[in-house]
C-alpha cells in the first residue's frame, strides 16, 4: 500500500483543541447544572443537543443499516467495499448520540432506567431501547474488523455465522426508532408548526433517513479516499447516487400529498417565516439533489456526486432542526438560541469521533478490506 501523508484536512490539532474544550465544558455542566452551560428554559426544554446530537445524529447514522441491507439482504455486491466504513461511522455515531444524551438528560446516572421501568405508550422509550440495542448490534457487526486485526479466529467464525440474523435485526430496530423519532413529535400537536405536524411524520422520518444513508456513505468514502489516498473508483459512489433520487422522489410526493390532504398546502406560500425554512429543506435537500443526481453526467463526475450527496445531508440537517427546534414552539413567550457551551460540547464529541475514525483507518483493516473487496469485484 502506498504510504501517503495521513493527516486530517482540518488539522489534527484543531480537532484535539475542540475535543479538549468539549471535555472542559462537560465538566462545568456536571458541576454547575444544565442552566449554567445552556440557554434551555421551561419554555424551551429541548435545544441544540436534542436537534443536533439526537435527531440529526441518528438520521446521519442511517448509513449503517441501509448499506448492510443493500449488501447482505439485497445482495448488491458492488457496494461491499463501503459496508465496513459505513458500519464504523454508524457505530461511532450512536456512541456519540449516547454520550450527548448523557450530557443532555438531567439524571444521566439513570440512563439505563428504560431497561427496568417501561412505559410502552412513550415513543421515547422505543427510541431509548432501540438506541441501546442497535449500538450493541453495530458493535457486533463491526467486531470482525477488530478480530481480524488481532487474529482471533474463533470469535470471527462465530460472528460470521450470525451475520445475516444480525443484519436483519439491525434493520428492524432501525426502522423502528428512525420512525419513532418522528412519533415523538406527534405528542406536541400544539407546539409543532402545521407544515411539519402530520400523522405520517414517522414515515417521513424513516424515508428521509433511508435517503440520507447512502449520501453520508458517499461523502465519507470520498473524503477517506482523498485523505488516505486509497484506490476506490467512482462506480460505487455513482451507484449509490443513482438510488437517491428515487427515495427522495417518494419522500417529496408523500410530503406534498400529505399537506394537500390536510388542506395545508397554502401554508407553503403564506406561513412566513416558517415557510422559508420549509422551502430551504425541500430545495436544498430534496429538489436540487433529485435534479442533480438524475443526470448521468453529474453522477460520473466526482464534484457532481459529492455536491449532490452534500445537499442531501444539509437538507436533512435543516429538516431535523426545523421539526425539533425551529418550528417547535413549546411554550409561548420563550425564545431560544443555543449557548456557545452547548455547541462546544457537541463539537467536542464530533471531534472525538473524527479522531477515532482517523485512528481506526490507520490501525484497523478497514481500508484494506475495501481494496480487497474492490479487487474481488473487479
Amino acid at each position, binding site marked *: 500500500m502506498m504510504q501517503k501523508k495521513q493527516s486530517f484536512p482540518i488539522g489534527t490539532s484543531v480537532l484535539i483543541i475542540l475535543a479538549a474544550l468539549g471535555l472542559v465544558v462537560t465538566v462545568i455542566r456536571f458541576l454547575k447544572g*444544565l442552566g449554567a452551560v445552556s440557554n434551555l428554559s421551561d*419554555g424551551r426544554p429541548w435545544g441544540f443537543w436534542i436537534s443536533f446530537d439526537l435527531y440529526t445524529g441518528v438520521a446521519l447514522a442511517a448509513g449503517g443499516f441501509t448499506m448492510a441491507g443493500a449488501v447482505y439482504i439485497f445482495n448488491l455486491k458492488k457496494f461491499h467495499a463501503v459496508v465496513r466504513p459505513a458500519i464504523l461511522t454508524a457505530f461511532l455515531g450512536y456512541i456519540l448520540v449516547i454520550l450527548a444524551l448523557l450530557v443532555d*438528560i*438531567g439524571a444521566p446516572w439513570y440512563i439505563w432506567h*428504560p431497561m427496568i421501568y417501561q412505559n410502552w405508550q*412513550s*415513543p421515547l422509550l422505543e427510541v431509548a431501547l432501540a438506541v441501546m440495542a442497535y449500538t450493541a448490534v453495530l458493535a457486533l457487526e463491526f467486531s470482525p474488523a477488530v478480530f481480524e486485526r488481532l487474529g482471533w479466529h474463533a470469535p470471527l467464525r462465530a460472528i460470521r455465522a450470525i451475520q445475516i440474523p444480525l443484519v436483519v435485526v439491525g434493520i*428492524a430496530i432501525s426502522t423502528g426508532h428512525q*420512525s419513532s423519532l418522528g412519533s415523538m413529535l406527534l405528542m406536541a400537536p400544539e407546539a409543532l408548526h402545521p407544515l411539519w405536524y402530520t400523522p405520517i411524520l414517522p414515515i417521513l422520518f424513516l424515508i428521509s433517513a433511508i435517503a440520507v444513508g447512502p449520501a453520508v456513505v458517499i461523502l465519507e468514502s470520498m473524503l477517506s479516499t482523498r485523505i488516505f489516498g486509497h484506490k476506490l473508483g467512482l462506480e460505487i459512489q455513482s451507484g449509490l447516487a443513482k438510488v437517491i433520487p428515487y427515495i427522495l422522489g417518494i419522500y417529496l410526493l408523500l410530503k406534498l400529498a400529505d399537506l394537500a390532504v390536510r388542506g395545508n398546502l397554502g401554508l407553503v406560500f403564506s406561513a412566513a*417565516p416558517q415557510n422559508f425554512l420549509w422551502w430551504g429543506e425541500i430545495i436544498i435537500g430534496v429538489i436540487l439533489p433529485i435534479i442533480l443526481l438524475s443526470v448521468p453526467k453529474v453522477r460520473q463526475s466526482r464534484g457532481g456526486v459529492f455536491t449532490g450527496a452534500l445537499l442531501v445531508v444539509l437538507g436533512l440537517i435543516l429538516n431535523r432542526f426545523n421539526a425539533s427546534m425551529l418550528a417547535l414552539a413549546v411554550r409561548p413567550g420563550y425564545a431560544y438560541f443555543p449557548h456557545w457551551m452547548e455547541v462546544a460540547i457537541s463539537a467536542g464529541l464530533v471531534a472525538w469521533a473524527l479522531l477515532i475514525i482517523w485512528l481506526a483507518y490507520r490501525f484497523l483493516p478497514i481500508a484494506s478490506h475495501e481494496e480487497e473487496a474492490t479487487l474481488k469485484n473487479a
Partner: protein
Amino acid sequence: MSKAVLFDGPGCIGCRACEDACKKKYGLPPIDMSGSSTGTLPAEPTTNPRTYTHPAELSAYTWIKVRQTEIDDAKGFRVINTLRKCMHCIHPACVAACPVGALQKNSDGATVYDDKKCIGCRYCMVACPFGVPTYEWDKQIPFIRKCIYCPDLLEKDQPPACVTACSKRTKCITIDDRDKQLAKAYKMIDDDAKDAAANKRDPKYINHVYGEHEVGGTNWIYLSSEPFEMLGLRTFGSQPVPADFSKVSWGGSWGDLRTSVGSEAVPTNAERAMAAVPLALPGVAVAMAGLYWVFKRKDKLGQGNASKKKEVTK
C-alpha cells in the same frame, strides 16, 4: 372516584394564600418580599419583586400561581385573576410521554411524579399542552417540578394544601367528586344567569367550564368571567387551522395557527404510531429475512446459469 377542584375565577381576590400554602408545604423558596421576607428560606429570585406578577411564570419553585391579566375593552378596565398550575388531565400527555413511567395518574385524579425513576429527558415538558412541568435548571441533580395535587392528603380524603388555605379566605377553590363539581359549576352559571336577567346586570360567568372537555377533560376545572384565551389559558377548540398568519411570531406561540387537537386527549396520534411498533418490528424482520432468501436464491440461480452458459460456449 376521581376528584376535581373547581376554581371560581370571579370569586378570586388574588390573595395568593394558595401560593403561600403550597410553598410552605413543599419547602419551596417563599414569595420574594425583596429583603423583608420573614421566611427562613431564601426567596426565589424575580425580576418583578413586590408586584403581583412574580415570578412571571410557573417555575420549579412556584407550582401554583395567581396570574393577573389586565383587560381594557368596552366594559372598561379591569384586572382578572386566574390560576396557572397543573390541570391534572384525565389523559395526561406527560404520563404518556414519560419513557420510564416517572409520571403516573392516580385513580383519585392526581398526576404524580417519582424522583427515583425520572431520567431528566424533559419530554413531559414538551408534551404538556398547558405548559406546566418545569425543571430545576440551576441544580446539579435536577428534577421535574409541578403541582402533584398533594397525593398524601388526597389519600386521607383531605383537601390539598392550597384548597385548605383558600377555605379560610374566599373559598374560590373547592374539592369534590368530579361529576358533582361539574354539576355545581353549571348550576352556578345558570343561577347567576337567571339572577342577572332578573336584575338586568351582566352575568358573572361565561358559559364555559374550562377543563370539562379540554384535551379529554381535566381534574381541575375553571369558571371565568372572560373568555379563557384572554387570560392566557390555551383553549383547545376543534376548529381547523384558520388563515390568520399575522399572529405567527418567531420563537413565540403559533397562536391560532397551532394544529388543533380539540377535546381529543393529546397522546392519540403518537399512541396510534406506537401501536404499530409491535407489529412493524417483527414484520420488517420477517420481510428482510424473506428478501435475503429471495436474493440469495436469485444469485445462486444466476451463477448456475452463468456456469451453464460458460459450458455451452466452451
